């Protein structure tokens, strides 16, 4: 989840109340965020709710704190004025990045902190919620430099030049993807496009090439900027609308005046931002039954107001209204959770349940427990090793040709890149780490492997004994003891296996099926692992 940097002073200003670090930490619970660190005025906050991008901003956090402290409750009131601003979408952009929603915000008084917050909002929302700018890219421009109307269109990569942000000479669109930092970072998003999307104004001044970079002229916001034009581009309103709503509300919280923009797309016409209230009706009894409370409808309404809803009750039903910076509300439960949070989790007294059921361990757990008792009685040390390993351990180091194995497509380390298909390499790895320790060493593991032939996970038992006089008999005695005690009808057949000495290797057979292997490990294998003691190993599948 995104970590955002906020200024304590800025947060307190937005809330309109001085708070200590401890108070802020407590308040952050209402936003599901946690305070990661604080250095003086700088607070690092990890956002907690993947579905509430409005809470990945300091303005959104302040909005919640205002509600929960009673400073300002109910649905916030944002005025959206009409205007004559128009953005024309041309047909050629349909293939590459078809949609945009826009807004104008005036009367801003930017300072260093509010610019930092706006840039952070853009980055975090487009990276996280907008899936690395793929689904949503946000641009903010100096309104006073724009000649209206704006056109959202597409140009071929070599046919247009402009000066990208933080550069001093014009580059072609293609060059921007090759030379500018952001160009290289996001070039893959335009990989297959024949033409690249462009916002351009009536004076043919380029605003930006989404989702890559703004122009250095209109696309640069400084402390002197008073009025801004905002656009969010992408493929689906599900992604771009919430981001537009979140940024205009955030700027409005800092005193900005929101104005509408008309977007013409062929014959269709939309006007954004649309901050009209959404509504949902929940059942008061259902709300109480989920939380385990007995709240009156008026109490539920009050709690909802603290959570920045407007709420009215009528005949057991509660109708809530909320602004579309929230896009997470799908089910009644999404509202009910906000009632519970506003009530306070710490005020909810735990209540005993009497769901009477009969508990039982799985059959394999039970079998493992019994076998483990037996082996410990026989003086064996239980071990636990990793199931993730590598081909080298599974094949080369046990003297076997490379075979089929479950491989991880995106490993972090070559050492942990495959799921093991046998416990034998794990046992050898363990023994090889203990060659300087006291002998005899008698160890066992019951662990999971993935059998790729049968395409299933299996629990297996492996026992390894190593000391100067160990032989086949000793390991066979262990096997026989387990089989006898657990009533597993097994027999031994002759077997050849590259890891073991020929003539001293057996297949463990049950119901005419091979379920394991037993034998003296081949000195060639022992040498590979730097083991200088003779070693006998058995491995047996406990379930199929």
């Amino acid at each position, binding site marked *: 989840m995104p970590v955002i940097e906020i200024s304590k002073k800025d947060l307190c200003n937005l809330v309109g109340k001085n708070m200590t670090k401890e108070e802020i930490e407590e308040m952050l619970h209402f936003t599901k965020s946690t305070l990661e660190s604080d250095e003086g005025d700088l607070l690092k906050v990890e956002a907690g*709710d993947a579905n*509430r991008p409005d809470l990945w901003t300091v303005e959104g956090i302040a909005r919640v704190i205002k509600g929960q402290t009673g400073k300002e409750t109910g649905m916030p009131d944002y005025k959206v004025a009409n205007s004559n601003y128009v953005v024309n979408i041309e047909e050629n952009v349909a293939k590459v990045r078809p949609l945009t929603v826009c807004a104008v915000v005036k009367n801003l008084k930017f300072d260093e902190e509010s610019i930092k917050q706006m840039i952070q909002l853009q980055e975090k929302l487009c990276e996280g919620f907008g899936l690395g700018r793929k689904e949503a890219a946000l641009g903010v421009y100096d309104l006073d430099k724009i000649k209206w109307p704006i056109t959202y269109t597409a140009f071929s990569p070599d046919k247009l030049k402009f000066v990208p942000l933080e550069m001093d000479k014009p580059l072609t669109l293609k060059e921007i993807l090759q030379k500018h930092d952001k160009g290289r970072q996001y070039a893959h998003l335009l990989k297959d496009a024949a033409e690249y999307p462009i916002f351009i104004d009536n004076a043919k001044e380029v605003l930006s090439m989404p989702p890559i970079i703004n122009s250095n002229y209109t696309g640069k916001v400084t402390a002197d900027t008073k009025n801004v034009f905002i656009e969010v581009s992408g493929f689906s309103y599900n992604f771009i609308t919430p981001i537009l709503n979140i940024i205009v509300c955030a700027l409005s919280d800092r005193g900005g005046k929101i104005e509408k923009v008309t977007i013409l797309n062929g014959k269709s016409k939309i006007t954004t931002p649309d901050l009209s209230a959404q509504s949902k009706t929940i059942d008061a009894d259902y709300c109480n039954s989920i939380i385990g*409370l007995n709240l009156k409808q008026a109490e539920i309404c009050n709690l909802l107001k603290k959570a920045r809803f407007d709420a009215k009750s009528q005949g057991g039903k509660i109708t809530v209204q909320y602004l579309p910076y929230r896009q997470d509300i*799908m089910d009644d439960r999404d509202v009910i959770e906000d009632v519970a949070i506003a009530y306070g989790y710490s005020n909810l007294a*735990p209540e005993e349940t009497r769901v009477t059921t009969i508990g039982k*361990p799985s059959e394999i757990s039970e079998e493992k427990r019994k076998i483990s008792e037996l082996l410990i009685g026989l003086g064996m040390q239980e071990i636990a090793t990793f199931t993730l390993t590598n081909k080298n351990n599974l094949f080369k180091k046990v003297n076997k040709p490379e075979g089929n194995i479950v491989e*991880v*497509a995106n490993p972090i380390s070559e050492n942990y890149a495959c799921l093991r298909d046998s416990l034998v390499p794990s046992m050898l790895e363990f023994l090889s780490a203990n060659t300087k320790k006291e002998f005899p060493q*008698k160890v066992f593991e019951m662990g999971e492997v993935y059998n790729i032939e049968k395409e299933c996970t299996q629990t297996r038992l492996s026992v390894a004994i190593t000391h100067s006089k160990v032989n086949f008999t000793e390991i066979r005695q262990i096997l026989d003891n387990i089989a006898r005690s657990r009533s597993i009808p097994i027999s031994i057949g002759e077997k050849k296996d590259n890891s073991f000495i020929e003539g001293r290797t057996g297949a463990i057979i049950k119901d005419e099926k091979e379920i394991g292997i037993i034998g003296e490990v081949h000195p060639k294998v022992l040498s590979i692992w730097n083991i200088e003691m003779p070693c006998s190993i058995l491995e047996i599948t406990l379930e199929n």
Partner: protein
Amino acid sequence: MEGLQETIKALSPIEKKIIPFLNSASVGELVEKSKSDKTEVLRALDFLANKGIVNLVYSASKKVVLGTNGEVYLKNGLPERRLLTALSKQNSINLSDASKIGLDDNELKAAIGALKRRAMARLESGKIILEAKEEEVCKKMLEEQLIESLPINFDDLSPEKRYAIDQLKNRKEIIRIDESKDVSFKVTDLGKRLQSQDLSKANYIEQITPQIIKDGSWEKRNFRKYNIISPVPRIFGGRKQPYLSFLEDVREKLVRLGFEEMSGSLVENEFWNFDALFQPQYHVARASASTYYVKNKLKDEKIEKNIIEGVKKQHESSWKYKWDIKNALKLILRPQGTVLSARQLPKAKIPGKYFAIARCYRPDVVDAKHLSEFNQVEGIILDKNLTLKNLFYMLGLFAKEIGGIKDIKFVPHYFPFTEPSVEIHGKHPKLGWIEIGGAGILRREVVKPLIGKDVTVLAWGLGIDRLAMYKLGIDDIRHLFSYNIDFLRGIKNDKKESVN
């Protein structure tokens, strides 16, 4: 004279065997002359020293020897030499072509590192570029001189060579430092007096045998006196692996609380892990940064039609996008135990309580705080009329029973599949407030497609590895899967030694 006889009475056969040769110059000579086994001789010397028959002087020595790779490199050249030779021919090599030199990835990395450290090469935009002058290239590197001079006593090493050892030590199997203890001995006056005795006359009973009991010969002979005070070799009994033993306790407690255990495969598909748990197919959590994907192509699971249809409908109506079964069948290594709960829902009894202790995987770099595989304890409780307060009660019970933590608090949280959701924090006596688990009431969007109707399902998961670490008193998470047999045997080392 009587003292001498007492001493003779306590001599074991091997002691008697070596006493005549105690004038030997070394242990080796003593072994040879007495025709005995070296270990036996060493033990006997120990006993003789205890009895004041010899004086022992111990000295430790460290020897640097070639490792298995070192032997190969001695023949074929160190990786950095081979890279340097290749570079000196063409001045720069593309990283992608570097495999042609015949070095594996690790060797190549080590070689580049070694050359960079000496400023003999640099890396730039995917190329290795030669920086060294010709005379530098020809000169033998310190490491090369070192491996050619092995084996060598550690104490005889020059400071430069010690530096070279520090460089090579961390690379795989190039050199090894063998430590050995040497012992020398000198016979005492008492020993000399014993040497003048005819020890073969002293015919004491050693090991008492069935024969001796049966034939009564013990009546005429004396028993050799044992040294019962000196220590004997250690033995180790069977023991449970401490982490597994902790998990076993957890299992037992949950069974006692009425939970039935679930189990499943290590290889899962996205359907049960993400789609059934209401995570849209474009969700960030499905990105490869948090999940291991499986490279292989395996058989597609046959999931019940009505479940697929239910999940598809739910996603499309709630998240408003086109859901595709193809994206749901991609294979992953189980990233969370909740997948087992999802699979249990269609077949769960109502009321019902289920749990799993599941091995899970996450792409994390393995260090003291992270493992790429770990265990999660997860569960569900199904019934009519369950509430958030009931969930809090159960969580409190788990914290106390499993974690031994009494002081807890509940904090709002987000999980894609529960609403309301909660995170449970517990006050640990040493560490203060820590996160011990997450829980919530499963969303109706999860329950309805899988069960077919609306049932209240409390879902919970505990960060069991963390609790295990507290319980076992370890602060490095890797020790849960310790590869150190001494640690598992319960041997406490004064030396700070890795348990891995």
